[in-house]
Structure formats: C-alpha cells, structure tokens
C-alpha cells in the first residue's frame, strides 16, 4: 500500500470502478486468480479466503498532465499519477478501480517526473484547487481532454480481459457497470458519510462521500469497490428476472445442444450457480468506513432488495421443479 505520509494533505479524492462478470465458463480458483491479477512480476497478489475468496492486484500507476473537469469552467491544470488496481471476488466478478487524491495547492510549474513518482496516486493542481467545482466536475464527467479516471480503469480491464486464462464463455449475459466517486473532507468532528448515491444513465452510478482527514484513499476506493460490487449484483439479478419471458410468446431458439431444461430454469440457473453466494456487504471495507453501509441498508435497502430477488429466483425454480401435469396454471412472476 502506498504511504501517504510523504505527500501534502489531500482535500479531494476521486475514483472510478468498473465491475463486470469475469468472462470465463468456470470461476477462477485462488491460484488462477493470483495468476490473472499478477500485473507485476515482483509484487505479490494479495489473496484472501475469509470471508470469501478475493484477490487484489498490486497498484499500477498512470501518469497524467491535463485539466481537471470542473462544474464552473475553472481551468485547473494538474500533474501526477493515478493508481489503478484490479480485484476478483469469488473468482467471478472482476473489478478494476482507478483513483487519485488531490492536495489543496501545488506549485505552478511542472516538476521533474521522478518527484511525482514517489507520491503514487497523487495528482497535484497548479496553484489552488477550486475543490467544490472540481468535485462536481469529476462526478459529472469532464469534457474531452480533461482527466478521465474511468479510462484508466477501462484500460486495465481491457488488459486483464486479454489474459489467456479467460475462455470468454460467460455463463450468463450481463452488463458491466461504472461507479464514479468523489470524497471531500468531513466537517470538523464529523465521521464519514455518504452524501449522495445516484443511479445515472448508461449503467453509471455516482457516489459523493465525506471522510475525515487521514482516511487513506485506497480505503475509500475499497469501500466504493464494495458498493459497486453489490450494486452490480442487484442490477444483474434484476436483469435476469426481467428477462425471463413468462408470457405466451415463443422464445427464440438457442444454439447449441438442446437442453431439456424449461426456459425459465435455464435462465435462472446461472444466477444460482454463479451469483447468489456473492452477497457479502462490508467483507473488506476498512473499519472506519464500514458503517456507511448502514445508510444504504436503511434507504433504499440494498440487502432487503437482494433478499427479495433471491426469494423470487428460488420460488421460480421451486415452481418449475413441479412436473407440469401437477400444475394448475403455468408459473407467473
């Protein structure tokens, strides 16, 4: 983990995480996960097996020198490095996460590159940082040519998806999601809080946080990875349930050897095999941030929705386990 002691105090942290189903027929075991996530020959992949199987790659850096997006058109150039890493949960869900933090001020000229490299994950503004405007700008996504942390997460995802371990036979079709976050300092004495969690268009989620001074940006990224993972699970299972056609229409024929499974069972089975055991909020969120989940459990109630979805999946499967001759009517949602 990068030490943060050497860098000036950060007043803004920002990141984006991309979450997708690993395109492989079988979930990866811990050895294969470590192989996939070995982005550097000389750094270990952290593999953990409690409370679930999880692998975390070393951080890699990308150099940037460009304007920061801002909501009021302020033109702030910034130079530094964005950190990015990849995580694999239960050998099944791949997340790539890019993040950086910004100090309140920086020198008004560019320094030798080696001086930025010893502060990994810090992007320094030229002069003063208009914090609020940049935070909003980052959440909204900038214009072309302004810092785009999502591209860095995407670049790492592309790199990992080229790994020869992957056979590109995903057990189900699913949509990748993006979660973009900013964290601003909490007011004196306040603890961390989620100010806003928004579901936007095009599978984009945005989160605005307040965190006390001294919370490491890697830990904030860890919290956001966890939020993104569970939001993706909800999104994906909802989509599967939306997709099972229960009406009279004839479904499209499926290529490949014809299974004798009813269509609904064929559609729900991958959720049972690959997704339902993944729900485990806060499994790896640092202690000081873990309680932020409480707000989301209250409203909208992430776990409540999940339990309802799981129940629906199980009910459907139970109904289809009854031989058709004993059913009075065809199962409906």
């Amino acid at each position, binding site marked *: 983990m990068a030490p943060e002691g050497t860098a000036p105090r950060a007043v803004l942290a920002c990141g984006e995480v991309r979450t997708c189903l690993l395109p492989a027929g079988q979930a990866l075991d811990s050895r294969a996960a470590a192989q996939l996530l070995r982005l550097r020959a000389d750094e270990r992949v952290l593999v953990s097996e409690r409370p679930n199987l999880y692998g975390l790659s070393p951080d890699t850096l990308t*150099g940037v*020198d*460009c304007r920061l997006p801002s909501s009021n058109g302020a033109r702030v150039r910034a130079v530094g490095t964005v950190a990015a890493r990849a995580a694999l949960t239960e050998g099944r869900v791949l997340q790539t996460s890019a993040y950086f933090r910004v100090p309140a001020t920086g020198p008004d000229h560019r320094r030798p590159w080696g001086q930025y490299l010893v502060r990994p994950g810090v992007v320094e503004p030229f002069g003063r940082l208009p914090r609020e405007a940049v935070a909003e700008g980052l959440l909204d996504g900038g214009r072309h040519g302004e810092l785009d942390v999502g591209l860095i997460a995407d670049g790492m995802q592309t790199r990992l998806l080229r790994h020869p371990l992957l056979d590109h036979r995903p057990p189900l079709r699913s949509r990748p999601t993006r979660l973009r976050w900013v964290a601003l300092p909490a007011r004196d004495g306040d603890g961390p809080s989620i100010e806003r969690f928004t579901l936007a268009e095009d599978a984009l989620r945005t989160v605005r946080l307040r965190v006390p001074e001294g919370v490491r940006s890697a830990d904030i990224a860890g919290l956001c990875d966890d939020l993104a993972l569970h939001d993706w699970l909800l999104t994906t299972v909802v989509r599967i349930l939306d997709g099972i056609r229960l009406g009279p229409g004839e479904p499209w024929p499926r290529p490949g050897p014809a299974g004798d499974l009813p269509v609904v069972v064929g559609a729900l089975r991958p959720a049972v095999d690959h997704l339902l055991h993944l729900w485990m909020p806060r499994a790896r969120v640092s202690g000081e941030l873990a309680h932020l989940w409480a707000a989301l459990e209250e409203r909208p109630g992430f776990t409540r929705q999940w339990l309802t979805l799981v129940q629906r999946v199980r009910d459907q499967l139970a109904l289809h386990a009854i031989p058709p001759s004993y059913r009075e009517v065809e199962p409906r949602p």
Partner: protein
Amino acid sequence: MKDVVFRETTAEPRTQSVPLSHLSLELGHLYMEDFEAGPGRLRRHFEAVRPWVEAARSAAADRAGGGRPRISTCFLVDDYFTRFSRPAELVPLLLAEAGRAGLTVDYLARESGCAVNGKVPVAEAVAGRIVEEPPPGSYGNRPPAAQTGWLANGVRSPAARTPQAMQRAAAWQPPTETAARRHSVFLDVELFSDTPDGQRVWSCPFLAAVWQLARLGLLRHQGDAVLDPHPHTGSAFPDDWDELPALVRLNPRAAPFAAYRTCSVLPNRFLPVEHAVRVILDQLEVDAEALRQVGERSARENVSLPASVADRVSYLFYAGS
C-alpha cells in the same frame, strides 16, 4: 484497521528491510576491453579514481553532520555482455591493483545479477515498474503506441506516415523533451533487444539503472530483498563466473552494501550511459514500502534525502577512457 484476531498471511503485504549505509561508493565498472588492455589499465584507473574517492568521502562526512558516515565501496564486473577471464584470476588482480592505490573494494558484483538473479527476473520486474512521464495533454487515454523496448525523456518526432487519401502529409516535427527548459535535450534509450532466437538482451544503461536501485536498497521481489551480499569465505575464487554469487562481500568489516545515496567514479566514456540511467530512474516507480522504509530510517538518523530516486544518485567523471 485490520482484524487483530484473524489473520491471513497471503492477504497482507510484507516487505523485508535492508541495512543501509550513508553512501555507496562505486570504484568502477570492468569490461572485457579494459581487461584486455592489461593490468596497466586497471592501475591507471584506480590512480585516477583515488582523489575523487577522497572527495566523495569528505562530502559524505559533511552531509552526515559531523558523525562518522557509513560508506561502502563496490565494483562491478561485466559477465553479461561478454565472458572473459575467470574469477580465480581476475578478482585477486583487481584487489591487488585497488590495494596498490590505497583503495578497498568492499563488495564485488556481477552485472548478470542485475538481469536475472537465481530465479528472480530482476530486470524484467524493474521494466514492469516503468511509468512513462506523461507529456502535457495526457488525460488517462492510452499513451500513443509505446515503442517497445525504448524509453524517451519526451515526445518522439511523429513517424512519417502515408497520409490518408486526399490529406496532405504533415511537415516534420522535432522531438521534445518533456522537462525541457526552452530547448530540448531529447534522449531515447534502448532498454533491451531480442535476438532472433527470442532471447532478450537487456541494455547496458538498463542494467546500470537496476544496479543503482540495488545500491539504493530499493529492489524487492515479492517483498524480499534482491542482491543480498554473500560473505566471501575461504581464500580462493571459483573458476566459473556462475559459481560466484552475484554480490560478494570481500571485506568482512564493510559497512552495509545499500545506502541512502550512491556515487560512482567513472571515466568520461560512461557519460551517455549514465544520462540514460537517469532518464530510466526518473520514470521508475520503485517499491513503495521499500521507499518508505528508507525514508523513515533516514529521517530517524537526521539524514536529508531527496524525494526523487534519481536525485539520490551522483557521479564523478574523470578525463580519460
């Protein structure tokens, strides 16, 4: 904070620390052509080096703030690009010539240890730590197709491409050094080349950059120190270079091999190589935990240390080849 009751060792990073001197002083590199020029060449080299060694020692003493600085000396022999002589023949000769000039060689290193050390692919791992200096306008997009095996200190001159139909060919544009002050000194460094049979040959500047990281105590492989010094026991040296450890401690009372800063005393002909080394070091993200350990230790000892790794390296070039 981590749960203190339950731990998983594979889930926690761990980085070995290494002992550190104030200064790692390099007394020279030896290549085949130096050896072939006869013992007179070595003698002249050590004679030319001696006054600069004195200067480097006294500068280190000044920086150490009155206290007695820990200084270790080292010498690098090329066994990577060409194999010549035998340790049993060369090492005693080298030590004798150094001794004649009043110099002690504390540590002897083989250059191939900077490429691969045992099973550790040192050079490849370091190459994986290059973070290219972004030219202005880098916003997170993929950098323009990197030249595989090359590293520059700026933006290359655009390659002359066949323009698309009905478009005019672009005029020549100069390369630019990203950190230029008004005018550029553009340098493009070859990091390695591949032989027709697929063997990767690391370039001299790249191995020299790895050598500098080792001397700065910043090389790690999965948390373990790389290039650990092996004490020299017994009197004889082996006949085969492969039987000599990559780094040998010749002087049992020597200060630690790695140091906060390095200084190398070299003839002028190494100037371009060492410029290239600086370009490489300036774009390497070294192991963050190793960097933190060194920073913490130096702070405890009240030794001021430049933040940038490249700035911890210094040279004394003497006239001659």
